[in-house]
């Protein structure tokens, strides 16, 4: 056997190895678009909250519009996000109302996830839409459970059959927990004070009762962690934003 023969053999083995490996990573072919839009907008499903690793309660719906701003059918939309985020489906062709719907499961780390929905215009340029979703870790989720039990009847103005809101009955209106402009200005220590000693602790309404005798140890930090996680605009404690490519912070 001469040297060139063995070289060829090694080459063949190497090619076989790489092709068999790359086969695994091959994604399903993208559907062919029949139209190209001018803009992509969010129809619904942004800024939702879910536990880490679990699906968002509502699907994410995005819409592709043409140059005149009316819905466009037949355009291709692709979804992308940090690793760990699962889309079902990860791409799709817009339907007759110009929309694509996907179910999103967030990754395993608590924080904000940036989702990029993209389509291509006539000149094959990518147009992107960025949407943020929020994943709650153990502590934030415990806070959410407690907030639903004790706080949301007044702090959430939305009434449902199962939980009628008390919001409209209060003279001084409580702030919704997503109101970042309000909560981001209040320090953790002040939030702890107002939750444990009631509104008057911060010169606020006495209609906010003191919960210090009711909540267990660890409950108040959990409530604060939840408020920090869902506030909009985001609090400086909201944690990392996970985005596609690179594990660095976006913000």
């Amino acid at each position, binding site marked *: 056997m001469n040297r060139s023969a063995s070289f060829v053999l090694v080459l063949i083995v190497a090619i076989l190895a790489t092709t068999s490996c790359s086969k695994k990573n091959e994604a399903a072919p993208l559907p062919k678009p029949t139209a190209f839009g001018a803009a992509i907008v969010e129809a619904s499903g942004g800024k939702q909250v879910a536990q880490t690793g679990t699906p968002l309660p509502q699907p994410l719906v995005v819409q592709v519009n043409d140059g005149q701003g009316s819905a466009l059918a037949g355009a291709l939309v692709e979804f992308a996000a940090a690793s760990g985020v699962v889309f079902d489906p990860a791409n799709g062709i817009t339907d007759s109302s110009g929309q694509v719907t996907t179910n999103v499961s967030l990754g395993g780390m608590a924080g904000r996830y940036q989702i990029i929905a993209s389509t291509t215009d006539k000149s094959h340029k990518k147009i992107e839409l960025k949407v943020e979703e929020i994943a709650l870790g153990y502590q934030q989720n*415990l806070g959410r459970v407690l907030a639903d039990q004790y706080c949301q009847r007044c702090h959430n103005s939305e009434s449902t059959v199962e939980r009628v809101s008390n919001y409209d009955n209060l003279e001084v209106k409580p702030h919704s927990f997503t109101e970042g402009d309000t909560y981001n200005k209040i320090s953790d220590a002040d939030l702890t004070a107002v939750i444990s000693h009631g509104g008057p602790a911060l010169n606020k309404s006495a209609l906010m009762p003191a919960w210090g005798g009711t909540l267990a140890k660890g409950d108040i930090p959990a409530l604060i962690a939840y408020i920090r996680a869902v506030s909009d605009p985001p609090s400086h404690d909201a944690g990392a934003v996970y985005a596609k490519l690179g594990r660095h912070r976006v913000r």
Partner: protein
Amino acid sequence: MKEKFNSIWQRLFGDSVRAFGVVSIVFLLSLAIAPAKNFFSEWRHYQHGYLRMIRNRSEANTLQRHFKSGIQQIWLPELGVVDRCTSCHVGLNEASLTDVASQPFRKHPAIPHKLDEFGCTVCHRGQGAATTAAEAHNSTLAWEQPILPAKYVESSCGQCHRGPLSGTPVLNQGRYLLSRYGCVHCHTVKLPDGTTMTADDDPPSLSHIADKTSREWVFAWLKDPQAYSTTATMPNFKLTDDDARDISAFLIANSTAVPGDAQAVSAKADPTGGASLYGESFCASCHAVQNAAGNMVGGNVGPELTRVGSKVKPEWLQSWLRNPRVYDPATAMPHYRFNDAQVATLSGFLQAKTDSDLLANVHLDAATPQQITHGKRLVSDYGCASCHEIAGIKKPENFAPELSRIGSKSITQLIFLPGMPHTLPDYIAGKIKQPRAFSPGLRMPQYTFTTPQIDSLTTALLALNDRATTLPPSLAVAATPESDYQPAGKAGKLMSDLACFSCHRINGHGGDMAPDLTWEGSSVQRQWLVSFLKNPNTLRPALIRRMPRFNLTDGEINDLTDYMMTVYQNPAVDRDSMPLSGYPQGQVELGKQLFYGKYSCQGCHIVDPKSDKGYIGPTLTQVGSRLTAAWIYQWMKNPQSLRPGTVEPNRAMSDDDARAVTAFLISQKGGGSKETAKK
């Protein structure tokens, strides 16, 4: 070729000095392999990365001081944990590293346990002793448990915590579903504490089904239970038309009549009064009906009634409404004590809820003996008697595989679908989602679970593993055992007849729709209880589920009231220790000020309907005629001591404040102004 080889050999080993030199170099190189491997190891690479990262941070000195180089491990012999994860996940305990997005350096999110006391693999699985990321995180030949995906991580809490926790909603939901959907009828689940999981779905007995419904309905139901009721618990067995025909033939032929359960009433129905009687009786507290918009309106304790008219026979329905305990002694439905006119009206109203499509295409010829015999065989084959009582068929033992240790099942024992990831969680979730995909011959039926429901069931099942079973008893956190409390005597009988426990909880037994009555005797005044049982009015304006009126006789009300006032007493509340009236005006005034000022109770309660709007707690306009003063006082001092978990905040009131608020509230007798006006 040979010459060339010879010349090389000569050059290397031609004389002894040369040979010695070459062999020494080879020997030295081979000695260097181990240190080199160590030097270039993955964990060292991560530790260098960590040091580079912390260099630019403001708290670099502190982090540097905490840093320990080399392989780190958490060794917990009691749990069998040797976790070297902290060799790469260096910053897990560093409070300041919460903002680090690059792994493996971020601080561990806040949890109630210390990492040094529980290690990593107890919760996250994976191979703790491994020192490379691939071996630690992925499944290897020697270690088949990869890292648990985040969505199932609550299963690990369930290894030690056997009851529900407020921080583990997914696990709680999964455990609830296992019993609510009757999984444990067929699959035995022995819990690590030695008890066996019981089902909570109450499948009806089929021994008398011909009294209740037609064979056509049974056929349609067997073919697709969700077509009759989208909320049906019964899964779809994907039966062929022939099999459904034969099973329906057998069930109808096998059914025996219950004396008195199919007697029509002679009274005339009021054709317009049905809806209001349905509403007044608060049927919707337990039963749902789909409205025109397609939304379910009502509770989920009883079956959905959207198409009930296409199901039940009129005479059966009338007997059922008259007294459901004749047909099913253990039903959760109360015995309403309707009169015949009411029975006729309500049954007429329900009978009109039909769906003409449901049975439109069902045409069954009279059953043949062969069909009945075949139907009986199918009933045993499909294990129908695992859930339903069927006369003449014994409940099969171990009908489906036991799931007591499913969370540690070896993946070599599993058969995966093509294209499915080879992990245990994926297998369990896939099996729940589409059991028959694994083999068309499987008998496990098709459920209509949503993805979050499947994930929560998988979470609950993964908690049933070897670690949970072999856990040192000192680490297990026991669940509160479900009490089987039953009141005694005449009142006890009456309470089961009225199915009080379907909604109310007493001494740890019963439902959670209505208030806990464990201390009702200390809490309320006798006169109020009597009039409430006679004509229940609502205490909470925001609630849509309310106590129905049971048309009780005075004697029955007396028996119930006497029993509750005597037996359901809290030792900490002496109801005679504080009077119901006669508090000094000054104290009442002070109480009023505290109520509206310091404690701002009007945020949740209404005392003066003109000015107060609070919607959360009960209305207090008549609280002085309802509650005892001693109860109010103790409630002000510590509501959770009387009713654990109540939303009423514990305000840590001083004795004086509590007494003043009590004096104010007890003066709210309600209706007082009206009475004086009448006089």
